[in-house]
């Protein structure tokens, strides 16, 4: 089974409901028949890391960009995913596409 490491920012003043985004993502993956194991354990080996930043400042990116992190990561940062603006309710659908692209490469 494919695995995704979840990393949450500190959540001081999030513009999005981070847990809800992930809940909706999990449901949508399930509906699409994609089985993924999610973990917040930083020691576990994973295929993709999903950074869930509450706002566009993206505190988590500072750490991950600095370390030239492997494996690849997708960064949710408020109503933005990587370098695209996405409304909150559309984020899970957008993430599925990104995740599938990374799984398939």
């Amino acid at each position, binding site marked *: 089974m494919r695995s995704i490491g979840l990393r949450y920012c500190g959540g001081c*003043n*999030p*513009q999005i*409901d981070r847990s809800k985004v992930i809940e909706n993502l999990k449901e949508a993956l399930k509906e699409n028949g994609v089985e993924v194991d999610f973990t917040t354990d930083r020691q576990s080996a994973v295929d993709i890391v999903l950074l869930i930043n509450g*706002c*566009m*400042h*993206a505190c988590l*990116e500072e750490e991950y960009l600095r370390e030239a992190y492997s494996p690849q990561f997708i960064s949710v*940062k408020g109503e*933005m995913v990587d*370098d*695209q*603006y996405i409304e909150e309710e559309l984020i899970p659908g957008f993430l599925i596409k990104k995740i599938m692209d990374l799984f398939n490469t």
Partner: protein
Amino acid sequence: MTMMNGKEYIESLRTLHPEVYFFGQKIKSIVDEPMFQPHIHTAAMTYELAHDPEYEQIMTATSHLTGERINRFTHIHQSIDDLVKKVRMMRLLGQKTGTCFQRCVGLDGLNGVYVTTYNTDQKYGTDYHERFKKYLLEVQKNDWMPSGAMTDARGDRSLHPSKQTHPDAYLHIKERLKDGIIVSGIKAHITGAINSHEILTMPTRTMGEEDKDFALSFSIPADTKGVTYIFSRQTNDTRRLDGVLDGGNPKYGIVGGEAIIIFKDVFVPWERVFMAGEYDFTNELVETFAGYHRSNYGGCKVGLADVVIGGSNWIAEAHGINKASHIIDKLTEMIAMAETCWSCTLACSYEGYKTPSGAYHINPLLANVTKLNITRMVYEWMRLAQDIAGGKIITLPSEKDLDNPETMEILTECFVGKEGVPPMDIIKMLRLIENMSVGAGLPEAMHGAGSPAAQKIMIARRSGIDKKMELARTIAGINRDKYFEKIIGKDETAHWDEVKKKIKEKKVQIY
């Protein structure tokens, strides 16, 4: 890359021949016109300090286009550090000039257009961003100062641009040609316009589909055919012609030297057009520019506060009242307000983010809070400066009476302060405080970068009020509080039922 110094900047203006009117006259030479010189000196400071090793860390940056060292006023912010250094530069220049140094409008325009053209191209497949990068390269290579021309004349504010009786109330496209566009319209109170090398225009408001021809951004040389400037008045401006002393800040003047720019059938080649009808990106460009620009005010105005606080303390010492508790209290108030605004601007810079274009933008909510504080606190710290300085700031005699042998001696005696302080120095300082606290700098702090209502709209829009309601609902017990349930180890409703029961049984201990 050329990085001009102050003198070279002034000389570079001689190569331009913009059509400028002031006081009913056409001005022959911008550089030689005494009414304009203080503004030119102030803008020159943005060039001069870039050459001083003491300030170059703040005043210069590395171009992301060429890797070369450039003046920070032509730089696209590439990191949080760049955003922070930008506002540090604003404070520094406010300290060195005591007034508006004009060049930040163009800087914010460059960054705003850079960010927006990238997003426009993503949606429409246009090539505005590449065009703009080529233009930016020219700006950096020549160390140009573009004036950022956003605010239109606007006519009837209740009507959209296309519905105005006078079509020139907003700058617009009159004709689309194969090689460019013809534009007409009026931009109002544009800072540093007459002493800039270029004009960078941006739309002033959100446009609808019917306003397509008004959704417009371009750059042209300042002396392009068809462009006319009318320089605006400022408080006590003609004192500059009366001598040296009465102006208060004869070297650097007061506010930014604003002008009305009239565009009449001006040709703009396509390579200099960065928006031409993409009305759905007008809001983004306005908000991006405004965000950058509003953040600046917590830098530049705090630099001015540093000067006026220093001046107020100096006057208090010269008058022998600096130990009085009410003076210490007032100065402390001024410092606290200034540093509050500084904290705001640092915060909106440190909380900035990377846009899809790669450029960094400030936190828009905090930038608007910064500017809203400025609209209030500048008035308050200037009020305290007036309070400390005393009534003399509005009753000082003229320089001509101070120079007149018949009145000189008695007037000088009148301004004697503490022993050892020359009376003329006291007069100089009082004039500076008058210039800074009574003049046009106050409404500039109110309306520059947008009036308070504009900031409140942005603050309301970006505050996330729904999420705040969620927080309140959870604390109030309307929503389920999962963390509280974890802490108490049970369902919240069951917990409160137990508590009520224990209270009824007069058992105070809850657990």
